[in-house]
């Protein structure tokens, strides 16, 4: 791997204890408030020296604007916000954090829906919004090299003139950052056919929790050795901070057809979805919205979905024109056979955009019909769709908590939106209970607690419902290999900090697994 960008490359990933960069007896925070304040002051001094003057935020009122990401009901004001512009600046801040045992949290555009970028009151928030250069678009190689703060859609905008685009398309693609996508292994409507972020990131420069800069993967596909890149993508900021991403560009399809189909019920729409996939067709996307979600989207963007629909499917077919034509005929027939009462084919880009606008703004649009809501992100086998949707409807009617459904029907990734009014006594708790029960439903149907939003803060408590203690311990081994001091986004993903110790700071004793003779430290 040639070092064409970034600096301070080591020959390869170096995983180890932080003894290289931190003196064994470095002054670490021991947990008293005074020590913590001193540690943060020390990191602040380093940051001030390394970053431009406007790259630090210390004013309490200003800090407050960083207290939450896209999941606004978790709020913590960070001790310091830094806005680095280069990999070296990120590394300098992280090295100081490592030296002083100060936790850090990375944040891109702050649109995540699992509280993955929730700050620490005793930590540093490293915001990548000023690292937004698209360094290279190598269309012929189908690669782009971008900084982590680059907006997802901007990669596509930069590649489109060359006939390419960046496939992962979260609903927030107009603002979410590539770095955040990488951390969360974000999906999107078109992941049914094209795969998640992990299928589209080929390399990254990672600032390790010790502050080293390592290069994982590269311009060439499938780097030899362990797939450390695969480990880092989707690690939710717990293994370091990505400061460069090499992403795959995909050729723009010759033909795209977007079809909006109205059904009387979610049962019919679910059955049609299964029928399409069973017929061997892989549409670029199959999205479903139920009546309540349609109502919200109509209120927000006047997307003009079919009147009286109990559910709509947005089906997009893309590829070679003859193939799309052939698939379109089958999809059209299968929808009709499964009870569709209206089908509309977008005749131009404007109509296609309007259909997608309804779908993509649906989460935030729910703000129009409810003051507060929880976005869930469960996954179920596609065949269980009708059954699980009925069970959600039952949960909703028995609890009196309204639930709107917007989801990627094609791959069984549900996004139930649990509506409540936070001002009403107990409403939040009731909503949370329904939200948790939905996740249980997903698990009991052989699914998962998150499809694409990540575990973050929000779902950490649900991890034990899906994984045994042994499973979680094994995951911790990976974490400890990268971040033995537990300073990289601590408190996320795992229910309680296990083994590495929750409290940031240097671990004094050997790792419990090492002590038990089960493992060696790297």
């Amino acid at each position, binding site marked *: 791997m040639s070092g064409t960008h970034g600096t301070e490359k080591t020959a390869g990933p170096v995983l180890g204890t932080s003894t290289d960069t931190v003196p064994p007896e470095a002054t670490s925070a021991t*947990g*008293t*408030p005074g020590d*913590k304040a001193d540690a943060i002051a020390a990191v602040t001094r380093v940051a001030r020296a390394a970053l431009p003057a*406007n790259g630090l*935020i210390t*004013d*309490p*009122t*200003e*800090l*407050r*604007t*960083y*207290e*939450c*990401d*896209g999941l*606004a*009901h*978790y*709020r*913590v*004001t960070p*001790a310091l916000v830094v*806005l680095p512009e280069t990999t070296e600046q990120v590394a300098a801040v992280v090295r100081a954090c490592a030296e002083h045992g100060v936790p850090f949290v990375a944040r891109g*555009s*702050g*649109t995540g829906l699992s*509280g993955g970028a929730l700050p*620490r*009151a*005793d930590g540093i928030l490293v*915001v990548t*919004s*000023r690292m*937004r250069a698209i360094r290279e678009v190598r269309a012929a190689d189908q690669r782009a090299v971008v900084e982590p*703060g680059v*907006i997802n859609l901007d990669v596509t905008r930069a590649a489109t003139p060359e006939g390419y685009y960046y496939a992962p398309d979260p609903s*927030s693609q*107009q*603002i*979410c950052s590539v770095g955040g996508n990488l951390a969360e292994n974000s999906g999107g409507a078109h992941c049914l056919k094209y795969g998640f972020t992990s299928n589209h990131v080929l390399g990254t420069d990672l600032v390790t929790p010790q502050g080293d800069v390592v290069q994982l993967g590269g311009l060439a596909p499938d780097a030899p050795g362990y797939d450390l890149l695969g480990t880092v993508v989707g690690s939710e900021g717990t293994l370091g901070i990505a400061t460069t991403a090499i992403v795959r560009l995909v050729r723009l399809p010759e033909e795209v057809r977007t079809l909006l189909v109205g059904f009387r019920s979610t049962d019919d729409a679910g059955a049609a979805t299964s029928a399409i996939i069973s017929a061997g067709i892989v549409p670029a996307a199959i999205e479903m919205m139920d009546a309540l979600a349609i109502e919200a989207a109509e*209120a*927000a*963007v006047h997307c003009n979905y079919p009147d009286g629909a109990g559910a709509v499917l947005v089906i997009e077919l893309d590829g070679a024109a003859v193939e799309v034509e052939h698939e379109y005929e089958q999809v059209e027939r299968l929808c009709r056979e499964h009870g569709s009462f209206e089908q509309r084919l977008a005749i131009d880009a404007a109509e296609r955009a309007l259909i997608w606008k309804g779908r993509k*703004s649906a*989460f*935030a*649009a*729910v*703000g*129009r019909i409810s*003051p507060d*809501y929880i976005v869930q992100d469960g996954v179920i086998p596609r065949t269980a769709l009708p059954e699980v949707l009925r069970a959600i409807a039952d949960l909703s009617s028995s609890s009196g908590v309204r639930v709107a459904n917007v989801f990627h029907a094609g791959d069984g990734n549900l996004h139930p939106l649990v509506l409540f009014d936070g001002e009403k006594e107990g409403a939040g708790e009731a909503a949370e209970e329904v939200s948790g029960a939905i996740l249980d439903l997903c698990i009991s149907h052989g699914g998962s607690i998150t499809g694409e939003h990540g575990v973050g*803060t929000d779902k950490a408590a649900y991890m034990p419902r899906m994984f045994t203690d042994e499973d979680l311990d094994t995951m911790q081994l990976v974490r400890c290999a990268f971040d033995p001091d537990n300073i990289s986004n*601590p*408190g996320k993903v795992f229910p309680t900090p296990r083994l590495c110790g929750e*409290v*940031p700071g240097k671990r004094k004793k050997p790792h419990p697994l090492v002590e038990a003779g089960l493992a060696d430290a790297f």
Partner: protein
Amino acid sequence: MAQPTRVQSDEPQSDPRKAGAQAHGPVPIGSPTARPAFDDEHPPSAELISDCVHCGFCLPTCPTYTLWGEEMDSPRGRIDLMKAGLQGAPMTDSMVQHFDACLGCMACVTACPSGVQYDKLIEATRVQVERHHTRSPGDRAMRAAIFALFPYKRRLRALRGPLRAYQASGLPKVVRRSGLLDRLAPKLAAMEGLAPVLEKREKLPERVPAVGQRRAVVGMLTGCVQGEFFPGVNAATARVLAAEGCDVVIPRRQGCCGALSVHNGRQEEAERFARSTIDSFEAAGVDTVVVNAAGCGSSMKEYAEVLADDPAYAERARAFVAKVRDVSEYLAELGSVAPRHPLEVTIAYHDACHLGHAQGIRQQPRALLREIPGLQLKEIPEAEICCGSAGIWNVLNPEPARELGDRKARNIASTGATLLVTANPGCLMQVSSSLERQGTRMGLAHTIEVLDASIRGLPLSTLGPQ
């Protein structure tokens, strides 16, 4: 300084949700002298604030976020600051700085899927800022000068003579090349650079009769900057309306509509201008008030809110608002009867923020322009992002305004159009100085001037360099 929301716990993050709750509860005021940011008289509405779900869809369209990449200079960040203020945080200099930095372009209102009425929130906040914040002496003097000049036609007119003499003297080139003014007084330099080359003023009669059969009687706002710096736009507006069958009534005693005051939190001044504008047009007895400056039209459509607390005017303001139309909105409603002559030109149409974002008028001007045979219309990339003019923002914030202007100018140039068309005097001044800096020579015109040229069969050259 008070730290109303800072959650500093010794325990590692036990329950962030609890921390949130804590942050939203009663807030200790840090120092005994710190007063909460807002008083009880129309603070930004807690209910409107609660509409924001923090999704971040506003960020990419916010000019200051695109410039600086900071939350507190984004719509949702400013809403967080308002929330802090409502919870008792004091109005610190930094808080005011972030409110002041907002251009008021309302691109976020367009982008917001949750329907947050940021326009109402920021205007309420600005009134509070004006009431409770003491600005630096320099800032105060600059603002005083601006508000003593721009809303007053006669004072602007008095400036025309010396300005024309200055422009004719060849001094501008020397001044700009020397960069002296930039160094000594950047805000003054900004004003110098923005002043358009003045055209001859055409005096408009009080009534312009309809051509042919009369279809309507409308009133026309002449505006301050529009009237004095772009008199041709007013003349063209009157001619086009007349050609389309309107008797155009132009009340002589009309003054400033108060747009700059409304958009800068100068409540009393805004009320005064609003009352007198309502008086003038009520006296004129017209059913429609046509406005050709986007900023003016947008603030006149807000009179009901501006005068909500005035028992003598609240109802009249509501009735007045129902009559206000942007000229393109009105012409599209009316439908055209006057024949159009071809104009073989490729234009780039720029949505003025106060027309597109604030009034939702995007299709009408485009439809009117497309009626002209031979005219080709190009869309400008990043159309939703403000050009940096924003009323007096470019005078108060010359550097970032220049960055935004240059970005807009690059996008405009990329369309390959030879004529830029927009509907606001501020945008025309801002974009023209950026295009000039970038060395792009192109014509600049108000939508109505293009229609006027087409209806009268004038050559393209009347619309500036092509």
